[in-house]
């Protein structure tokens, strides 16, 4: 039952950070802008209207009371109306979030496959040319921002060699499948239209690659470093002395302990994917969460911005719990450390 106590401990930490997050967002929404009532009413509204609004929004109460009202509203799922879309922000979020999630999901798959493949190759042929190629590529991955990659990919693969579409979800003329989940890929599968599905995926390749490239190359370096370090360990020498085939040694003995450091930072990678989605989606005109977010931000739509930060914060927290549990599962030392205390 060691793993379950570990999970409970992580859950408590996460609850703390979510409380913190809510305070932070509250400050963002109620303290930073000056007078929220004035912002909702507009600059030209009469003073009595603003006064009434202040009462209605409970802005006349002390700040800490406002905070508790506000948290209560969140738990009831009431995040308020958007000034911009004139709808409940929850409706807005539900409409735009799935498109972002499918893009991030594809990027995460690319990142995992790419990081493992490149990391294993570089670790297997360490200090030879494949390793050097990955090393150089990883410096490029660290230093080129995702939005720059997005533009370069668009220019090279969209305009110059024309392998991939430049922007959008599907080729114009193809009808979008009826909305069920909001994810166009899943919806076209549900509607039984494989060609539409492939078309959407084809549109997602460039944005997903631009999203994941930086994280992928860094993870590859981490996996490679782990493999090189573990190669000199006695148990590997023993395994090869026993005459085990090299493939078995690489994949069964070397890889597992070497991926743990990479998995540990995958929580941060998810944050990077979500943050970069904001930049990449706007380059490729992908109708995701960031498109909505940017519209909220430019219109100073406070309820919208708050919902945005909250949703991303919660997704991030959940992703980190999952990562911590996976790490504890992969690395028995972490569980044993608990016992040692």
């Amino acid at each position, binding site marked *: 039952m060691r793993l379950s106590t570990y999970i409970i401990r992580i859950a408590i930490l996460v609850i703390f950070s979510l409380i913190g997050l809510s305070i932070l967002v509250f400050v963002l929404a109620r303290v930073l802008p000056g007078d929220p009532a004035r912002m909702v009413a507009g600059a030209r509204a009469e003073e009595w209207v603003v006064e009434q609004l202040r009462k209605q929004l409970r802005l006349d109460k002390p700040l800490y009371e406002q905070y508790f009202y506000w948290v209560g509203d969140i738990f009831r799922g009431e995040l308020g109306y958007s000034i911009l879309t004139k709808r409940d922000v929850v409706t807005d979020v539900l409409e735009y979030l799935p498109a972002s999630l499918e893009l991030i999901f594809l990027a995460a798959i690319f990142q995992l496959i790419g990081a493992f493949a490149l990391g294993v190759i570089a670790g297997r042929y360490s200090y030879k040319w494949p390793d050097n190629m990955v090393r150089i590529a990883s410096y490029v991955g660290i230093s*080129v921002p995702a939005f720059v990659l997005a*533009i370069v990919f668009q220019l090279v693969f969209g305009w110059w060699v024309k392998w991939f579409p430049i922007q959008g979800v599907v080729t114009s003329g193809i009808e979008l499948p009826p909305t069920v989940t909001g994810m166009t890929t899943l919806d076209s599968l549900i509607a039984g239209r494989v060609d539409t599905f492939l078309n959407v995926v084809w549109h997602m390749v460039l944005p997903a690659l631009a999203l994941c490239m930086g994280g992928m190359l860094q993870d590859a370096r981490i996996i490679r470093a782990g493999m090189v370090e573990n190669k000199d360990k006695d148990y590997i020498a023993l395994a090869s002395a026993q005459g085990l085939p090299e493939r078995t040694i690489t994949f069964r003995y070397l890889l597992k302990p070497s991926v743990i450091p990479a998995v540990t930072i995958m929580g941060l990678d998810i944050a990077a994917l979500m943050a970069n989605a904001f930049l990449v989606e706007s380059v490729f005109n992908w109708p995701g969460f960031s498109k909505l977010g940017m519209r909220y931000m430019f219109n100073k739509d406070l309820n919208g911005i708050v919902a945005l930060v909250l949703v991303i*914060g919660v997704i991030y927290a959940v992703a980190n719990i999952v990562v911590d549990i996976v790490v504890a599962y992969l690395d028995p030392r972490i569980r044993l450390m608990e016992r040692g205390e």
Partner: protein
Amino acid sequence: MQIRLLEKIKQLSTRFDLRRKWYRFSRSPLSIVGLVISVGSIVLALAAPYVSPYPQHAGLFTDFRHARLPPSFTYLFGTDEMGRDVLSRTIFGFQYSLMMAAVVLALVVPPGVILGLIAGYYRGTWIDSVVMRISDMFIAVPPLVLALAIAAVLTPSLVNSMMAVSLMWWPWYTRLTYNTASAVRNEYFVQAAEVMGASSFHTIFREILPNCLGPILTKITLDVGWVILLGSALSFVGLGAQPPTPDLGTMVAGGGQFIHNAWWISIFPAAAISLIILGFNLLGDGIRDMFIEEAK
């Protein structure tokens, strides 16, 4: 006077063992490349009005007859949609990027480090938990997203984007310093100082802090790149410096709509951002090697 100064320098260099550190640093060619890029970009930024071919193109300048010209000997990086020289604007862009990094780090490092030191020194008490839980709060959201939100609530401008980034950045220094400080705290020399009756102020700043400097210095160098990245991302989406400021992120975004027939407007500033980030990353790696080998 001069002799005394020389002696002082000699003393300092033996104290920090500069020659050996430089040897370790210079063994890796990549670190030298990083040093050259970083120093080069700082020099370019400082000398921007003198070295750029058309300094007047940095601000509001229009010459539509020469708009969107491809790279040539007159305009090495071509001209943008207003007929301004992209090379000149890119060189001026270095100023804004580096200034952003300098201001943000100056705002972020002292409070972050001091909080980390205090939390590490009072490890296990309520001070520790309060400071560390507050910093966890800020780490609970991807920094770019929160910086975007803060920049959006305030009016978009260069100063506000710096504030937004600074607000997001200090907890990383608090965490880093906390980890090293709480490890150093249990060393014998710290206990010795305390037994001799050193004040907590002395213990924190004279005993613990000097032993945390290596990782902090490494992180500062690496962070120059990250702050520039975040800053350029903010201006890329329009929440940072506003046109006609020659900010690199703003320039990349501005050229985005002409990418298919005038790629040079976006690509050269984009390459400049990547180059600065690369330079400071390589430099940071070099500095890290310098300190890691010492620990061995």
